[in-house]
């Protein structure tokens, strides 16, 4: 842990905490956060999102996994991809062009500077990608499995692929660009803390202490005029209960918490300004191990899809914050442009116990004397359903499923292993059933590919990187491959429709509800937050959304 850094704030608050110590009888709370609670500092935004353990390490290294969340306010990608609707906004690059399906040409924005004053060029972009090649541990997206070379040509960067992979554009677009003049001297990119990050983003580090850090505006920013929040404060998040108190007392302006009954616990504290928006950000599904019986029977899966009361799960386990998910595998309404309108009922299975029973009996299942469901093979059906320990809403969902399937005569045991063991048993294919999340990617291709493409899967007992439910369909692989190679939107759409049909008819997983992005914010100081009517970015204070949001917020007049 490093300390003793930029000490402007230390001097300023010397008095504050002494007062707090002597006067703790009356209003000592000023010591925790000198600004927001008592004197509303209109120019700064307090964001409760970064959890220290419990204190912060001064780590703004964009390549290190445990870096500060503020890092994403400092570094920028080439394009901003809105994962809600897939919209692409030019960012460090101004445009892109496919030449065939193995060559992608990006045009780089001119006039951008790093926050240390050095000009940003196409060379930095090419350098960043070469850097990922040199250090495979940084290539999180596995780009160099398909890339052949990245070269510059004036203000253009040319990506040459060794095999067609059109959706890789999204991964290239969202890659964080780092300055060549700094990182070319760093041999072990993840080993350093990078306390003085040099990026192109709207903010730079101002002060740092183990319990709080602040960011200030980057004076060289290329969209300087759009950035109106002068300072962003990140206090330590703390546990759920204290975080909820900090949010509802108005000390924080923005947080990403699951709050039970948010209208009562948050909005009602300041109804004029306190708002929330929980847009769907992914799909939570019941994954069944297709390598085992009876899960390999599509009729069995179909019966389950009808027997599980998804509405009840969304209402009870998720406090009604989320909607039930379409079986098509798209996050709606954001991805509705991909939805095949010929799918019945928007591709949804609605709760219908009678139909479930009917499907089972037609497929040769029957109930024995004890009321247990017996498969055509003669075995009674029971299985365990795994949910990570401590994920209380998922556990509750699993219990509802348990109750629903009891109606069919299926005995379900809900087990709650540690995440590591949960994830391992799926990777190795040793599970029966598990709740799992997927989707929420900029293009549905990525979700479908990792969910369905059998090239990532492995026999039971061996590690599978993806397709862990072990779906195996030559037709689907073919469709994915065609989509991967297509630069033509129409072909992509046709492949998507076909895959949606696979999702709907073969139920590789049973979709339950849309996982939400939690976001509570106050418009007391700043307005212009993303919303359902203006979904310009997911409302999350982490990831790349802040870049978009911080260029939209403006002071409350």
């Amino acid at each position, binding site marked *: *842990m490093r*300390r003793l850094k930029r000490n402007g*704030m*230390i001097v300023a608050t010397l*008095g504050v905490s*002494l007062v707090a*110590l002597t006067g*703790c009888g009356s*209003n000592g*709370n000023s*010591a*925790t*956060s*000198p600004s927001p609670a008592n004197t509303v500092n209109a120019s700064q935004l307090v964001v409760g999102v970064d959890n*220290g*353990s*419990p*204190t912060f*390490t001064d780590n703004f*290294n964009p390549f290190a*996994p*445990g870096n500060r969340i503020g890092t994403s306010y400092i570094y920028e990608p080439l394009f901003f991809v809105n994962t809600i609707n897939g919209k692409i906004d030019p960012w460090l690059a101004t445009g892109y062009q496919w030449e065939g399906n193995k060559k992608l040409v990006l045009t780089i924005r001119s006039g951008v500077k790093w926050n240390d004053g050095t000009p940003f060029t196409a060379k930095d972009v090419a350098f960043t990608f070469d850097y990922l090649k040199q250090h*495979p*541990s*940084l*290539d*999180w*997206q*596995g780009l160099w*499995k398909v890339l052949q070379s990245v070269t510059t040509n004036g203000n253009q960067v040319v990506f040459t692929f060794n095999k067609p992979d059109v959706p890789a554009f999204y991964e290239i677009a969202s890659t964080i660009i780092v300055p060549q003049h700094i990182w070319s001297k760093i041999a072990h990119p*993840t*080993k*350093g*803390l990078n306390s003085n990050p040099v990026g192109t983003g709207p903010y730079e580090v101002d002060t*740092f*202490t*183990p*319990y*709080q850090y602040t960011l200030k505006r980057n004076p060289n920013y290329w969209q300087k005029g759009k950035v109106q929040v002068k300072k962003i404060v990140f*206090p*330590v*998040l703390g*546990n759920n209960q*204290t975080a909820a*108190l*900090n949010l509802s007392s108005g000390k924080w302006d923005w947080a990403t918490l699951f709050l039970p009954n948010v209208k009562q616990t948050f909005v009602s504290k300041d109804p004029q300004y306190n708002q929330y928006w929980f847009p769907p950000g*992914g799909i939570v599904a019941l994954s069944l191990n297709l390598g085992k019986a009876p899960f390999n029977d599509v009729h069995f899966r179909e019966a389950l899809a009808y027997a599980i009361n998804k509405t009840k799960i969304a209402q009870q386990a998720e406090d009604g914050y989320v909607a039930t998910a379409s079986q098509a595998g798209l996050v709606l309404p954001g991805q509705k442009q991909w939805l095949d309108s010929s799918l019945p009922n928007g591709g949804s299975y609605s709760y219908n116990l009678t139909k479930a029973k009917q499907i089972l009996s037609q497929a040769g299942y029957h109930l024995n004397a004890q009321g247990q469901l017996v498969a055509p093979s003669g075995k009674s059906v029971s299985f365990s359903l795994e949910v*990570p320990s401590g994920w209380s809403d998922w556990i509750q969902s699993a219990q509802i499923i348990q109750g629903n399937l009891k109606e069919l005569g299926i005995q379900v045991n809900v087990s709650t292993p*540690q*995440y*590591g063991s949960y*994830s*391992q048993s799926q*990777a190795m294919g040793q599970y029966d059933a598990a709740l799992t999340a997927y989707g929420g*990617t900029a293009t549905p291709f*990525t979700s479908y590919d*990792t969910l369905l493409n059998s090239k990532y899967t492995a026999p039971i007992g061996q590690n599978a*990187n993806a397709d862990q439910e072990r779906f195996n369909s030559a037709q689907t692989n073919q469709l994915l491959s065609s989509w991967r190679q297509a630069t033509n939107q129409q072909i992509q759409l046709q492949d998507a429709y076909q895959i949606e049909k696979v999702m709907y008819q073969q139920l590789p997983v049973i979709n339950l509800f849309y996982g939400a992005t939690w976001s509570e914010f106050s418009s007391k100081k700043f307005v212009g937050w993303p919303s359902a009517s203006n979904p310009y970015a997911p409302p999350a204070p*982490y*990831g790349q959304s802040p870049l978009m949001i911080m260029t939209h917020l403006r002071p409350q007049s």
Partner: protein
Amino acid sequence: MKYFMRKIVFFIVTIWIAITLNFILPRLMPGNPAQAMMSKFAQQGAITPSQEHALALMLGMPTGSLWTQYWQYLLHVCEGNFGVSYSFYPVKVITVIAGALPWTLTLVGLVTIIQFVVGTLLGVYAAWHRGRKFDSVATVLFSFTSAFPYFWIALLFIYLFGYILNWFPISGGYSGSLSPALNWSFVGSALYHSILPALTIFITGIGGSLLSMRNNMINTLGEDYILLGRAEGLSETVISIRYAARNALLPIVTNFAMTLGMVVGGSLLMETVFAYPGMGYLLSTALSNQDYPLLQALFLFITVSVLLANFAADIVYGFLDPRVRRGGAR
């Protein structure tokens, strides 16, 4: 002398066993750290297949046979080199622990000692005046407080004194605007932030030491030598303190030594509730992230300090109670 020699040999053997167990246990846990780390990202969005591989590369998973890993581990333990923490990557484990240990030692250590002293003294008083008003009130009251679930009382205090009355900060070890340094504003802020945590541990813990001292002492008060002391006309103070309390204290010393040893492990619940920068919080972070290097180092610290405290108690015991020494020598 034989007694002390035996204790020293025993101590060394237990340390070795502890170190070895410490090596084996984390390797028996299911899953691997890269997967555990993914759990953090899984809650923040989609994961692509290559990410886990990249993480595993970055963290440098242990390689080689178990035997080689074991020797390497022993060597590193002797050097105080516990490797790089996964959850605080790329910070060294030893640095992480050095940042947390002082907080736990000061707060939890001090409160434990104060709680022991105050609880024991009150216990002596209650036993001496057993059946009287103080005894009946204290016994009931402290049985009650010691049965409080810590989590509940801590959250209650936070809500009451932190949120409603706004007297104390609701979390953290010191003000967010300060960096650790030895100056008045920092020490002041740290003290101020420690009031609620200290109070909650004190309240939930004091009952235990009071009640055990009281019950022990009531037992010793029934011994013949107390009767003899009375018959010889010794003053009440001498009988209560030097005869009854001193003997009643003997079993409690061991207990106290154990508790002191455990202090190094921090107060897991307190530190989690208050986001206090101590060892308990580290332990829970390390556990939930399957941070083997940090976990091993923490367990090692805790085991060694409990063993040390036990060893010290054994030695002290040898002096306090001659019977223990003679028993071995025969």
